[in-house]
């Protein structure tokens, strides 16, 4: 299907692979609080190639939402992009001026917020809002009619009746319907990437299933690249092709979805997360909570952030923070004991 993520941030060196649709290069995001500076995203790098469904997974407070916002180079204050860059097809976002970024945020990297919050103007119909968007970005749809027709097409893919939906107001739609309309809006200007923050949180299981199917259909039919943020690994299994796992601001594993769920080469945190899911297919008390708690970002030590809770912990884990290192298939894990195995393999005759 698509090329696997390489181990370097920019794919320029490798002539076979096209540039990744979106690449994050040693990105760090700080929050400037009265109590000091907090690094919510710490030196994160990964790529998303065209047509992939990339999941950013982590628990609350791990920095995943901040990272998602940074994909638009837009971090809410008091946040600030400290170092690093985001590249859209090798185009650096840090080098863009305000006008270019404004256009980027609407037409190249679209964002769909959690529970479609604030996405809609409550006093005008959906159809009216579509017109406003088309007016604001005439370069994408010079013909208003074509734009609306495309929106109708999107509504059909997300399983909503087009004409009736356009005539409705936000308040007439259920939560699940609102989320689907928000997704249609996100895709209206044909962005390269659509970023979804917790697309199924606050939805019941039936609506969740609809959103999952809708996103898979959209990706198949439109070839759009999707990045979504979630804390739910089960959702990841249903939807993602590739996964980046975050813990306390760091990316601790980047791999394909099969590698995350089936490969023995798994970050201990990922293993712990998998074991903590109440699985409908298993009887009894099979799930285990993760012992300990997430460290406070202002109380981090020099070593691996997961060390206090890790079953594989060694002495050096407390002193040095392991880098993301990939094996032959591209499964990158930030763990000293696991990365020893690679060097052992590599050094085999």
């Amino acid at each position, binding site marked *: 299907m698509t090329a696997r993520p390489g181990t370097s941030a920019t794919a320029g060196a490798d002539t076979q692979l096209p540039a990744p649709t979106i690449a994050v290069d040693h990105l760090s995001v700080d929050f400037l609080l009265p109590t000091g500076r907090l690094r919510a995203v710490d030196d994160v790098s990964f790529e998303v190639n065209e047509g992939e469904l990339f999941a950013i997974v982590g*628990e*609350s*407070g791990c920095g995943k939402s901040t990272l998602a916002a940074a994909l638009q180079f837009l971090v809410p204050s008091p946040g600030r992009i400290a170092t690093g860059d985001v590249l859209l097809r090798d185009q650096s976002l840090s080098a863009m001026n305000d006008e270019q970024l404004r256009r980027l945020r609407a037409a190249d990297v679209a964002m769909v917020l959690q529970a479609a919050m604030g996405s809609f103007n409550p006093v005008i119909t959906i159809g009216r809002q579509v017109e406003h968007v088309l007016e604001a970005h005439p370069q994408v749809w010079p013909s208003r009619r074509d734009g609306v027709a495309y929106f109708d097409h999107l509504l059909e893919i997300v*399983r909503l009746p087009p004409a009736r939906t356009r005539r409705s107001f936000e308040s007439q739609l*259920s*939560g699940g319907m609102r989320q689907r309309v928000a997704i249609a809006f996100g895709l209206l200007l044909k962005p390269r990437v659509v970023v979804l923050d917790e697309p199924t*949180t*606050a939805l*019941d*299981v*039936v*609506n*969740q*299933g*609809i959103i*999952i*199917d*809708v996103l*898979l*259909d959209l990706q198949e039919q439109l070839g759009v690249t999707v990045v979504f943020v979630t*804390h*739910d*690994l*089960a*959702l*990841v*299994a*249903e*939807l993602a092709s590739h996964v980046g796992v975050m813990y306390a601001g760091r990316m601790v594993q980047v791999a394909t*979805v*099969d590698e995350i*769920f*089936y490969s023995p080469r798994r970050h201990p945190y990922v293993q*712990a*997360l*998998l*074991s*903590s*899911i*109440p*699985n*409908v*297919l*298993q*009887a*009894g*008390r*099979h*799930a*285990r*909570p*993760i012992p300990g708690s997430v460290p406070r970002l202002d109380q981090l030590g020099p070593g691996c952030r997961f060390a206090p809770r890790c079953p594989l912990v060694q002495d050096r884990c407390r002193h040095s923070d392991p880098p993301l290192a990939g094996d032959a298939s591209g499964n990158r894990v930030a763990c000293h004991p696991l990365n020893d195995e690679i060097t052992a393999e590599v050094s085999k005759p």
Partner: protein
Amino acid sequence: MSLLTVDGATQWFRNQTKPALDNVHLQIAPGEIVALVGESGCGKSTLGRISCGMLEPTTGSVTFDGHAVTSMSKRELKRFRMRAQMVHQDPFASLNPGLPLRTTLGYPLRYHRLARSRDLQDHLLALLESVGLDEGPAFLDRYPHQLSGGQRQRVSIARALSLNPSLIVADEAVSMLDVSMRVSLLDLMLSLQEEHGMAYLFVSHDLGVVRYFAGEGRIMVMFYGLVVEEGRTEDVITNPQHPYTTVLLGGTPVPDPRRARQRARGDSLKQAEGAASDTGCVFYQRCPLARQRCLEAQPPLLDVGSQHRSACWFHDEVPAHNQATNTTIAGTPAG
């Protein structure tokens, strides 16, 4: 003897064409765990609120500990409400943001004379410890926004626990927490049940969580105000007898990408486009087994096994749709 019996409950809200609850019967024995599952709008939360006295059904009877609620005096009604406590879904909204924990937890204890002023702090600290919050006295001075979602839910549980209830209604109590946090709260509620023996009415839309929590209890599957299947949790989940139950099971995400890829995509289309039917079986429009007979009347709950009932004429055909869920433990990668 049943602790709580809700009989023939029908609930109409204003400006609605269909009742939120339609002639629903619920019974909970002391110390029992009963789960209510269904999608939003099925009436499970309404039934939950009726069960702890927050709402009186439009028609139907509610009996608590042998006493009919409608004929209770003000004092008895107060006691009923205190003995049936609710834990709400939203950890952000269920605690008063303008009050410190000390007041939220402490005032009810003092008002109901369950603790004396001089013992209050010790009592509160012990209460917090019993829900896994082993913190010092300074913790009591905190405001809800200074706590994490998981901590807030624990405080909510502590609040419910503080009045020594016989029944706790957990209304989507873990739905707004991270998946990895849910287990520890579920384990907490189960251990409290082992220790204090209260019954639980566990309302949720997530079958994974329900199977974990109510595995040894019973489950009632609801659809638009009606109970469509009920029975022991393990029976209903491993051997569903109503097509809606298989829809819910099939739609529940599991941490297994290979299985997920095998799932047929068309099902959700039918669920998205269908609505509750007005004639015949309520599930007709969305049902994969629907046929002519289903339009005639709403099927009643029929006995289909030991303590297992289903409101479907064709329940025998249902297992054909759930082979996928029966390929179980060997395939899952977790644990």
